[in-house]
């Protein structure tokens, strides 16, 4: 009776899984669902490779454990056939298993450390050591999180021009960076906790008010990469997405120039309207 019932439920499960797989297989295959976005920087690529290693280990562990439990369940003796067998041996197998698991722990730990550290022992992903490998000058960009936007401030091209930081090029929502150039992103927040996550390019970094966190990456292909904030920050949190456009260096220069020009023009226009008294809501006292 029990056997029939469990076989029936097993068959039901299998057919359910098969139907689900048949329904969604094309989408699943197309979307590459078992790993993060395809990487566009070496640091993201190494993290993604380690993810794949760990995912395979985890899947193997799950299968081995559940398989062992299932096998043990099957080896049980019906009570009509004499009930449980005597347990043989206790204590020593546990010690050996514990030692083996301890070795596994240390191996995984070493993998984790080695994967993040370069030959000088400095964590690879957490410092800007990619800069040494790249040929171009590193660029430092400030990323400022606020409810619910990202503001990227690009370095001033010619600091002597004004010294007034409003002339600095900035952009909201979209970060534009040149390809094959080390980017140091200085991330902070003006209000609450946020987190900057563009898995194709770099590890996730939390934006904490009062703390400047740095993350470095070097994009090695052009394209547009989606990112999002992954730290709950209030009602607008779901809309707080971002995008990184990796472009050729000359396009980046053009982008900076156009931003600077546009910002300067906008400032002048505002200034004119304020001075002429046509700006809405702003009135100068006329003497």
């Amino acid at each position, binding site marked *: 009776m029990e056997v029939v019932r469990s076989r029936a439920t097993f068959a039901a499960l299998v057919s359910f899984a098969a139907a689900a797989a048949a329904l969604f297989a094309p989408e699943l295959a197309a979307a590459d669902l078992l790993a993060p976005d395809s990487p566009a920087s070496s640091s993201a690529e190494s993290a993604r490779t380690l993810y794949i290693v760990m995912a395979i280990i985890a899947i193997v562990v799950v299968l081995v*454990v559940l398989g062992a439990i299932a096998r043990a369940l099957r080896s049980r003796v019906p009570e009509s056939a004499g009930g449980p067998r005597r347990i043989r041996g206790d204590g020593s197998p546990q010690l050996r298993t514990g030692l083996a698991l301890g070795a596994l*722990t240390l191996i995984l730990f070493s993998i984790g*450390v080695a994967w993040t550290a370069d030959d000088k022992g400095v964590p690879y992903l957490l410092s800007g050591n990619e800069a040494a490998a790249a040929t171009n000058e590193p660029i430092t960009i400030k990323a400022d999180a606020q409810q619910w936007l990202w503001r990227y401030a690009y370095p001033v091209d010619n600091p002597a021009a004004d010294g007034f930081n409003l002339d600095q090029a900035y952009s909201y929502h979209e970060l534009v960076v040149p390809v094959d150039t080390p980017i140091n992103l200085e991330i902070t927040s003006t209000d609450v906790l946020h987190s900057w996550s563009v898995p194709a390019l770099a590890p996730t970094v939390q934006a*904490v008010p009062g703390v400047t966190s740095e993350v470095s990456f070097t994009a090695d292909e052009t394209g547009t990469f989606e990112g999002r904030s992954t730290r709950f920050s209030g009602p607008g949190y779901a809309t707080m997405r971002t995008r990184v456009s990796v472009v050729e260096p000359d396009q980046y220069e053009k982008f900076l120039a156009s931003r600077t020009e546009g910002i300067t023009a906008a400032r002048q226009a505002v200034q004119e309207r304020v001075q002429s008294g046509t700006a809405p809501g702003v009135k100068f006292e006329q003497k």
Partner: protein
Amino acid sequence: MTPVHTTSHPEVVSERVPRAERGWIALVTAAEHKAVGRMYVATALVFAAAALAELLMMRLQLMIPENTLMRPEIFDRMLSAFGVTGLILFALPLMLGLMSIVVPLQIGARGMALPRLHHLSYWLYVFGGATIYGSFLWRPSEAGILALPPLSTSEFLPGAAVDAWVTGIALVLLGFVCFSISMITTVRNLRAPGMYLQRMPLFSWAASIVSHTLLVVSPVFLAALAMLMIDRHYGGVFFDSGEGGKPMLYEHLAAIFVSGAVASLLVAALAAISEILSTFSRRPGVGHRSTAGSLAALAVLAVLAWMQNMYAGPLAPGFRYFAMLMALATIIPVGLILFNWVGTLSGGAKREGMPLRFALGAIVMIVIGLAGKLVTAVVPVGALLAGNAFTTASSFALIAGAGVFGGFAALHYWYPKLSGRAMGDAFGVTSYWLLLVGALAYVLTTMMAGLEGMPVDVAKFYGDSGLDVLNLIASIGAILFVAGFVVALLNACASYNHGRRSGPDPWLGSTLEWFAPSPPPVHNFDLVPDVRSVAPLADIRNAIRDRATRWYPPAARTGAAPAGEPEPAAGTAAGEPDPAGAVAAGSEQPPQSEDDQPVA
């Protein structure tokens, strides 16, 4: 069958045997551990219903992209209530309630030490939950699962909403502290003669570990909540970065508490599963001592690994490596426990039952959850996936595996001690499959959605991000999960008065709680037996068997019924627990026991 026969009246009547009070009087005044435990379990299941409603609403909102079913503020209220309800208003109190009922019985005590403190812990828990849900009458908290500052400071969320949340959690945490003190004192002082610590049943051992863990981590979060209230109302700057405060401090303290709470839940569930597997294999669990040690090690390591979900935060690399080492080291105790389970099951007796079924479901979910945690425990991967739905899915698998599957396994197992009746099998099977299929669909698709870039806690997702199908399946899974949970709740309610009557020992257990009648009388035991091993009830059975075999004339022994003959497979083969209540009537039969009988 089990010929252990206890009367409901004491054989030796000392003065003034207490009598159970009825109804509301008992509810308010009972300091009896079983009454308080029943109240804990019932209240936890009520809060579970609330958590289910919130989960259902959130998953309906996330069923299709850019859904306009509810405003983000409403979603955030559901989210803020769901996190705490699921973990510290449902899952942990369910386990604490079962511990309240079972532990004194298991260790052969007549009640809890410090019964009034134990009772107070229940009311603190109820008032805490009521404070959180009372705020739904006007405006509940929108500050997220952990109410992290600066978002939860009065600058961003003024008003009483967050205050009610903080106060409610603080009351619940105080309740945990009271419970822990009472439970630790009970386990230390009230054990039966001969019940040494190494002979204590694993669930009682786990109760001690859980109490110690909660006693350490609850005040940590209480401190964080106190700082938050000072910031909100008395001009404090603990978390105000503009004044030199550190927002990360709260996150650390909250993470310590959450790690400890999840570890406690896991320890309780693993211990309950160990006992169930041993009972349903009809033999003592393999490696009792290594399992007990592993449970303790797991609690310590899991608390020390509190930073394993904070790799994205501003931490020095050394701290990240420390957290990684601690998180990876939990492989050792968990692996040992799994190894012992395989040893217990293989070659054991083939018995079926709802507790075993739920225990197996719990193993599946816990293993998947821990595998997810294993992946993100390694620093670069953890940093890559931080704040991703992958982490939520593995946490959900872990908490649902331990709290829901493990909780229901323990509830099915010890339900006879709550009510004197067994939970229904038909409802049980339905709820089990709905829960398992739903949870697996939800967890696996949410993991994939996380890898595709689904962030945690979002109130909506966009159609352009390729998450439609995954979120749809996840929502359907969550709906199945909720449906299964509702069936299980109905089962628990209906069985309380209408379940099949179970005798003192429906599963043929080997620990002392099955020595007492179901439900146990106020004083638990007429006579507490001497404890000589980890399986005192099996010892009693063996002693009776030995006595019986010595008394019987040799002709009868060599005849049709030798001692240790396998019992007639009437109830067991059909997967039904043995109605041991029927056995008591037949106790004039020569008693036989099949415990620890080697097969020739």
